[in-house]
């Protein structure tokens, strides 16, 4: 009799534990399936619109043309442009290249005098930025 009582208690505990576990598990699943939705604000600023510019028309040939080699002043840009100049002399001898150091006191600074000169005399421009 005593044995029967103990077995019944153990069985009841097992059923209870199983049911308890099952309930907790179901609740977790239910929470995942019906997770509350919330609304949040967009954190971004406003980028400006972009106005597309006309690309300059291309050249039919480089022969007889004048290419300005513009150095913005970053260390080493001059040496790179001198090497480009040598390459043109060797490979496109009928193309004139002119090395120019941009003025204006900074990489981004404007150089109106050089811009005006190039607008009048340049057929093409290569600008070297260094780094």
């Amino acid at each position: 009799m005593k044995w029967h009582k103990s077995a019944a208690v153990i069985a009841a505990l097992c059923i209870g534990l199983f049911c308890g576990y099952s309930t907790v598990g179901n609740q977790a699943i239910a929470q995942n399936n019906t997770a509350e939705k919330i609304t949040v604000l967009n954190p971004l600023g406003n980028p400006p619109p972009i106005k597309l510019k006309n690309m300059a028309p291309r050249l039919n040939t480089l022969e007889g043309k004048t290419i300005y080699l513009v150095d913005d002043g970053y260390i080493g840009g001059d040496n790179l442009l001198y090497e480009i100049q040598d390459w043109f002399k060797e490979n496109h001898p009928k193309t004139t290249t002119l090395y120019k150091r941009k003025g204006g006191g900074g990489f981004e600074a404007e150089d109106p005098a050089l811009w005006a000169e190039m607008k009048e005399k340049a057929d093409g421009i290569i600008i070297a930025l260094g780094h």
Partner: protein
Amino acid sequence: MGIPSIPVVLSEFYEQETEKALNEGLPGLRTQWIQGPVWAKTRPELKRDVINGRNPISKQPVMQEIVEKFTKPLTNDEKRTGEIIRDRGPATFTDTEANLRKMFEEKRWTDFLPIVLPTAERVNEMLANTSRDPDEIVGKMSPTNTGNYFEYWTYTVRDVAVNAVMAGAKPEYFPLLLAVASTGKESMSVSDNSFVAALLINGSIRNELGINYTVGAMGPYAHANTTIGRAWTLISINLGNCGKVGTTYMGVVGNPMNLINIVLGENEEESPWEPFSVRKGYRKNENVVSLFEGWGVLSAANWRAASWGKEMNYPTIIKSIFDQQGGLFGATAILSPPIANFVKEAGYRTVEDFETFLVAPAASAGQAAKAKSPAPKPMAPNMSIIVAGGTNNNYYSIGGLRYLQSVQIDNWR
């Protein structure tokens, strides 16, 4: 100008310059990509690597491509004109918290640490701490505040509030954050220098907000210092389009201080001198935030470890450190109150007296020349002395930080 132009750029800047060309309205700009670096190479090395080299992206010969970029007719895409209108997307997003967190991180709207999600309720609580209209434009910001290299994004009071919430800032910090945002200064510069930014706060607002200015002033040891700094980072990422590696962030080695920046109050109570803000023309007790940027600061013990002794001549030691600082990006010393008092007792009654001493030519210049050592660099013209930290020992930090500007905080209440 109407003349075909070919910029020659390192391929490491491909993403950045492609985006820049688009922003400038030239998405088809025919840039020539080359192998870097150019700086520090000899002409034979440049001939080998660039002139006779290949475009690292297209794998085609560099000079052949340059010729083609001059002579190949424009495509229809390259001839396109008009305007591209960009919008930032919907005003709100609705989803589960988990999905929203995932989305914010995937879109790089965070600093990769958990954020407080900006619900309308939380944002409104932030907005309640200013009299400004939520739709008022606060300012504009780009990934560098020098020149117009990057496009500027604009933002409203509400936009700043959203990012302040995300950073975990308390609503009472909001006027200070609006003051910082109004400067348009980004906390994480695109510069390859890996700069850090700093905020110095003067006035009674330090105590009102609990901004630390004593022990650990520069570190993450107070809620205000930490979350104000983090908010500046999120404002920079989301309102100034900063911090995107490859396009708007190019710091070569990076800087961990970009996460929360350097945010500190000045220890006005224990400083022997006038507050920094007063020296910049503001009234004493006026609430002011001052902005700095540079390589950051290091403990002076790191710089002058061999100079420890029973008797310390701090003015001379500090000057020797300043003499090593170049003038390009400024110099700042953050002196603990004991150090500031040592300096004052050495005869420098005002900060200006001390600065005059610091900018004087180094006494050792002649000796250095005789010893064939590099001549000391010219004194940094942009020099700042700040008093902050505890009184528990004689420590101070010095480094490259240049003062940018100061702004009044109470205008944003």
